[in-house]
């Protein structure tokens, strides 16, 4: 049995049957990380010894796989989720030495489930980017073709799962940072409804857009992780106080009678032909399974991207102001006074993309520009919410490509920020409206790179989205493919 090829539910079955021990499971993943990660560079911090120790403790205590679906399942956390006693760097030099004295709420929930943390995953610095090339430490490689980017900003988490270096991982999605790398790496990635998963302990990029979600090997696993990480958290004022759902309950109920909208604005010349074909195939599968396919119109794709970059940067300029070298993190060695300390610390500590966004955001909030930029962007935000309401009046879910194109080459877009920003075009409207969406693998292009399909729904329809995704997944059978990791 190749343990690391197993999904969460398969591993859990094996654990329950006593076919494997917790230690064997963790060791298999830890060994695979040791074997592959020097090339793939998905992990910023490897937690091998502590993970093995935790697994051994579980074996000794007589806990079995039936304790919880995630008990003993090894996973990775994106390095912007606080983990007590372990550095949490956000892939930034400014937090190189930052060890939080508290846990992110999601980490606490996974600890309670008996999860085994394998390590902290690489990312674009402060989650700003679409390729994970903006990490201050290392560039993560796409396991399907290591000359390609894994997407971003949660590229490390996506690669960890795609290359079987974690059974699942958590990422954060501000404008597509889970779904786009999931798409580029051929795994399942979900951005839940804003407020469904606590943001406490997630280092903020753009507070009104950030949302934590899972990377998994299949849709059923996604439902299991969602079951574990959702729930009200009094520490997060924006956390939704809604009844907890079991996302596995309706997973296999099919799509009969469901109305699936195909957004016309999400196709056209910018979309790679194989991506378009995967879309058409998916629509056909859904139709064959009894769903009704309808055309819908989403009007504000371009405006959404513009509004996104203003809102996200504005919030980021304020959220990242606390990295001033006064209380924690890295401080410049030499400075003349406190103003100079700020300048030098932030000049040395932040990378170019972070600086660019701080400047954009500061500008957008400045007196005299606020109305033209931030306020206008917030008005566009309202229009987008209304537009989605219109769309979902005509259909239950909307099917789109996650990204117009499959993974691009490392270094290809890093010199052209605008081009890079465009890779989030299909994912940002979801964050702006706060609605849920999933990306699932829809096949491979001619170069053997994964294609992602995105399903969006109205707020709190994760169950319906996963149910539809499951139907597609079963028909597509993507898991037969495996990346070469070379």
């Amino acid at each position, binding site marked *: 049995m190749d343990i690391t090829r197993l999904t969460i539910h398969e591993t859990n079955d094996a654990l329950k049957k006593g076919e494997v021990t917790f230690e064997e499971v963790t060791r298999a993943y830890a060994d695979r990380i040791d074997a592959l990660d020097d090339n793939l560079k998905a992990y910023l911090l490897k937690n091998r010894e502590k993970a093995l120790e935790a697994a051994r403790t579980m074996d000794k205590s007589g806990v079995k796989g039936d304790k919880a679906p995630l008990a003993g399942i090894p996973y990775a956390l994106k390095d912007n989720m606080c983990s007590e006693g372990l550095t949490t760097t956000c892939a930034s030099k400014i937090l190189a030495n930052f060890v939080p004295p508290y846990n992110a709420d999601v980490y606490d929930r996974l600890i309670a489930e008996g999860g085994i943390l394998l390590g902290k995953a690489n990312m674009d610095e402060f989650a700003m980017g679409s390729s994970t090339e903006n990490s201050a430490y290392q560039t993560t490689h796409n396991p399907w073709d290591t000359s390609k980017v894994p997407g971003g900003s949660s590229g490390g988490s996506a690669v960890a799962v795609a290359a079987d270096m974690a059974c699942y991982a958590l990422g954060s999605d501000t404008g597509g940072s889970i779904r786009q790398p999931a798409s580029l790496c051929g795994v399942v990635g979900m951005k839940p409804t804003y407020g469904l998963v606590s943001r406490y302990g997630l280092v903020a990029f753009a507070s009104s857009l950030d949302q934590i979600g899972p990377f998994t090997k299949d849709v059923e696993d996604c439902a299991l992780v969602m079951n574990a990480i959702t729930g009200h958290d009094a520490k997060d004022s924006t956390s939704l106080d809604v009844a907890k759902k079991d996302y596995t309950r309706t997973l296999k109920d099919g799509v009969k009678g469901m109305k699936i909208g195909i957004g016309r604005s999400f196709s056209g010349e910018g979309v790679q032909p194989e991506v378009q074909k995967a879309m058409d195939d998916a629509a056909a599968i859904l139709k064959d399974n009894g769903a009704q396919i309808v055309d819908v119109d989403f009007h504000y794709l371009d405006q959404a991207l513009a509004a996104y970059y203003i809102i996200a940067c504005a919030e980021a300029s304020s959220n990242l102001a606390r990295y001033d070298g006064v209380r924690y993190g890295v401080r410049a060695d030499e400075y003349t006074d*406190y103003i100079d300390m700020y300048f030098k610390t932030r000049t040395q500590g932040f990378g170019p993309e972070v600086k660019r966004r701080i400047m954009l955001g500061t500008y957008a909030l400045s007196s005299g520009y606020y109305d033209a930029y931030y306020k206008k962007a917030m008005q566009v935000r309202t229009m987008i919410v209304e537009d989605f309401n219109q769309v979902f009046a005509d259909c239950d879910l909307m099917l789109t490509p996650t990204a117009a194109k499959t993974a691009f080459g490392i270094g290809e877009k890093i010199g052209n920020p605008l081009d890079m920003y465009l890779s989030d075009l299909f994912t940002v409207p979801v964050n702006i409206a706060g609605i849920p969406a999933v990306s699932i693998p829809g096949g491979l292009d001619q170069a053997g790179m994964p294609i992602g399909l995105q399903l969006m729904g109205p707020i709190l329809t994760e169950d319906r989205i996963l149910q539809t995704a499951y139907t597609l997944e079963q028909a597509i059978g993507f898991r037969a493919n495996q990346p070469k990791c070379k």
Partner: protein
Amino acid sequence: MDYDIVIGMEIHAELATKTKIFCSCSTAFGADENTHTCPVCLGMPGVLPVLNKKVVEYATKAGLALNCHIANFSKMDRKNYFYPDLPKAYQTSQFDLPICTGGTVDIEVGGETKHIGITRIHIEEDAGKLLHESADGTLVDVNRCGVPLIEIVTEPDLRGAEEARVFAEKVRNTLEYTGVSDCKMEEGSIRFDVNLSVKEKGSDVLGTRTEMKNLNSFRALQRAIQYESKRQIIELKKGHRIIQETRKWDDVKGVSSSMRSKEEAQDYRYFPEPDLVPIIITDEEIAKSKAELPELPEAKRARYVSEYGLPEYDAGVLTASKVTAKYFEDTVALYNEPKQISNWLMVDIPAHLKEKELSMETIPFGPDALAELLKMVKDDTISGKIGKSVLEKMFESGDRPKAIVEANNWAQMSDSSELMGIIEKIVDDNPKSVEDIAAGNKKAYGFLTGQVMKATKGQANPQLANKIIREVVGKKING
């Protein structure tokens, strides 16, 4: 040429919540540096604020007490600026939708009532403190970070130092009464900022204003206004222009000096706080807060006049402080002699408090002890004079007045047979006085009374002594 002084004030008051505005750290004053802190008020990465409900309740009550409109919908905003005492590099405050708007406070100055408009009251968090005394550089104390504040902003309705002081006192009393702030000036829990300009008398055109921040006593407030208005008038008379700027008031030197000009003022880049949800207050909650408001100074004052029959002046003095008013009412409840109690609370007790550097909060005996003392004075167990000595001992030892009177054998001599003996002897020893009285000089009675008091070391009941003196002298004269 004559000038009008135009003043608007901003008053910051710390709310009397037990915990901070966004975390559960204590707000207690005077703790060791950085002991009342947690990841939230330290602004660590990834932490989130949760608004303390008490803050909303207290701000609502403050607004109601100052006759404001309470917004059903308001929100928090971020005010962005870098300073080492501000861990998040933004202060969470309220910008365009504050919790309270459009209030008014009536003040009486020179026998006239004046309405002072309250523009708005908003909620915000306090910043930390920089400690510059260390040789290693500047240190930061974060204890005060996140202590909840309200900022009260007035219309430019105040016309001078006196009005400003009366207004500030009124606001302070009201907040203290309402229980939303302890208003301890010495701990900085209430601070005053003054925006001041002068204009030609009768002109509609406002002059350029200056701002003086963090005045933390009524005296400083009054002096700073007097100085700054004079300075501006002199400048204008010289033909100079007033520069819009923040000025620092030096209370020791009694002068204000330029700190920074508004032209280089910061752009705070306010925007809605995305980590918090809007503040929704229902009409029912507003009504509940209103019902919970205690009797405010004005109403109390009127009641003291009507219910206790006190003069206006007494009512004003007693209600000027919540603690004094409570002490008064508690004493009256035990011993229903309002005017007598008022006299002692206004004159004798403050004199001792001042001398001993105490306040009504730290007075060493309770209303029951005061009632006991005043009863003894009233029923002639002791004289008023002895009563004052007893009071002094009460301040020194905290002992009960009865015990003090007994220990010192201060009870008045009210036994007529005992007094009779003493008086007969004094009358016998002073035949001249008796002759004087017989000749119609009644003043000699006073001399005899004095002799009796001297002989009894002040313990003779004066009324009784007088009565007996008259009897004895009468017998002497009439044979």
